[in-house]
């Protein structure tokens, strides 16, 4: 490839570089077709014949195509044209000397044809682009925000949970999604609390999602069989639910060291608020988990706790103080 590119270019444009006309490819194609058909109906004979035809015509075609290279230019009868066109033999004006292909717009003309064509090309392009982009972008973005399902998780009869005892409860929020929707909550049966003049069951149900960046917080203390307490297992319509007993001195996050007390108040580390809690209701003596809500802090404890509730927000978001102004609008949440 060491020849001069420019000289090459001129060569290419000076002479006709069309391949000479040839009929051999037709025979070659027929041969290939016969070969393929033969492979199906009679590989021994018909395919062989087809292969032979293709081979012969292929070689002839290759000879033709390379005849120029092999120094024996194919002699082709020059095309004869007896009719002489008008103006034959005259030299045409150079391209720069003729008039313009398109008339210039009249001076003062506001919407010449070229402007119209330019505008309509761009406009139609934008329209087509928009018609395609809008639904696709909507499909890409909106499902994440629309129709967010509320979940009600049946955790089984409340009698199974010993009063005053903490449990690590694991359950599946959406059985259709399977294991990926498994969640953990820390649950304590507080007995009953006075509400509206009567005694109602009270539970402390704390989400294990750290209020820093969402890692799973752990109970700081012994859990499981070491306590000598039975692990409660229930089968509900949300699938298996497990309550493993625990005696937490608080909750801690393994990721960045956030620490909380047993009411979920932050005691140390990077979290910006208390742990979220699950809403709940008791239906026919069964504990039903509702959506989570966010908590800035909790005063008191157990059944007497005063919980400062906020709408559910993501981990790391402040719900009170001046920093809450950074999150004026939150996406819809169950």
């Amino acid at each position, binding site marked *: 490839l060491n020849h001069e590119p420019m000289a*090459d270019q001129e060569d290419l444009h000076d002479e006709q570089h069309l391949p000479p006309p040839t009929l051999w490819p037709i025979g070659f194609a027929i041969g290939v077709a016969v070969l393929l058909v033969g492979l199906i109906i009679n590989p021994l004979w018909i395919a062989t014949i087809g292969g032979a035809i293709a081979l012969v015509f292929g070689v002839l075609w290759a000879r033709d195509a390379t005849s120029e290279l092999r120094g024996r230019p194919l002699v082709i009868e020059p095309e004869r044209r007896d009719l002489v066109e008008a103006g034959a033999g005259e030299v045409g004006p150079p391209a720069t000397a003729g008039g313009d292909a398109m008339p210039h717009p009249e001076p003062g003309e506001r919407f010449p044809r070229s402007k119209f064509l330019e505008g309509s090309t761009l406009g139609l392009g934008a329209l087509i682009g928009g018609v395609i982009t809008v639904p696709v972008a909507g499909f890409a973005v909106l*499902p994440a925000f629309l129709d967010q399902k509320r979940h009600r998780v049946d955790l089984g009869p409340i009698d199974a949970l010993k009063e005053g005892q903490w449990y690590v409860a694991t359950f599946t929020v*959406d059985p259709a999604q399977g294991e990926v929707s498994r969640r953990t909550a820390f649950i304590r049966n507080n007995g009953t609390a006075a509400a509206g003049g009567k005694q109602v069951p009270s539970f402390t149900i704390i989400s294990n999602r750290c209020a820093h960046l969402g890692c799973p917080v752990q109970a700081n203390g012994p859990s499981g069989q070491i306590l000598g307490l039975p692990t409660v297992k229930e089968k509900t319509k949300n699938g298996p639910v497990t309550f493993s007993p625990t005696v937490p001195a608080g909750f801690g996050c393994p990721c960045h060291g956030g620490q909380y007390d047993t009411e979920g108040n932050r005691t140390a580390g990077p979290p910006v608020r208390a742990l979220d809690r699950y809403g709940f209701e008791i239906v026919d003596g069964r504990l039903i988990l509702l959506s989570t809500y966010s908590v800035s802090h909790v005063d008191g404890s157990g059944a007497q706790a005063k919980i400062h509730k906020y709408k559910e927000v993501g981990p790391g978001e402040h719900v009170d103080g001046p920093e809450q102004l950074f999150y004026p609008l939150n996406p819809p949440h169950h």
Partner: protein
Amino acid sequence: VATTTRRPPSRADLRRQRIEAAVNYPLDWLEERSGLIGGVRYFLFRKVPGDTNWMQTLGSASLTAFLVQAITGAILAMYYKPTPGDAYSSIQNITDQVFMGWLVRGMHRWGASVFIILMFLHMGRVFLFGAYKYPRELNWIVGVLILVMGMMEGFTGYLLPWDQTAYWATVVGINLNGTAPFLGPWLAQFLRGSQEIGADTLTRFYALHMLLIPGAIIGLIVLHLYLVIRLGVTSPPWSKDAAGMEPAETNGTGTLRPGLTRPVARGPLGNGPVGPGGGRD
């Protein structure tokens, strides 16, 4: 003197001519119909400053690392299943069962870090050589976009093995995005695909990781290379030569722009030293 004596070509000469013609025929065919040969030749044999440095190969190294990622990634996609139930086991299958799967996965996994590291080294070289200055500011910006896209590839690719590390790292990563003021919570929910991480998160990270972001990176790389070719290569800051200009090419008059890197373009619309008419007009 040589032209006066013209001896007839020998058989060896003729054979060489024929071989040359046979080699050139397909190349000329392609060139005549596409101009690609000339384009590639222009790209490969364009002039660069004589004292270019080994550090200036870091960009090509980054490109190579990206190509390795693209190819190994496409092959891994033949075996990977982006569903919560199958993702981890399909990775195990690739690593333990598929012939040489461990190698291709290893190349993709370690190559990811290599790609990012090389981009940072390349960026450091451009910064220290002052090669981001006029008229190459736009190429710096494009390069930064490629770096950001590369980081997004890292973030979305990290989830795909779908093990505990992947899952919780992604939880933290998404929530980190969620703490950005104003639009953060919306961004986080967009990344999750819903309010909780689930099957939708995995598939959308997969689509982002192997289609959308790589497509964007390829487009940006094309733009990046176009600008490199158009604007030419900078000399190292310690260079005493005129960058990309032979003395003859300054046309006897041209005093080059003073400055650390001496950009070779002559103006906002100027071509590089070997662009159309560049250096010779």
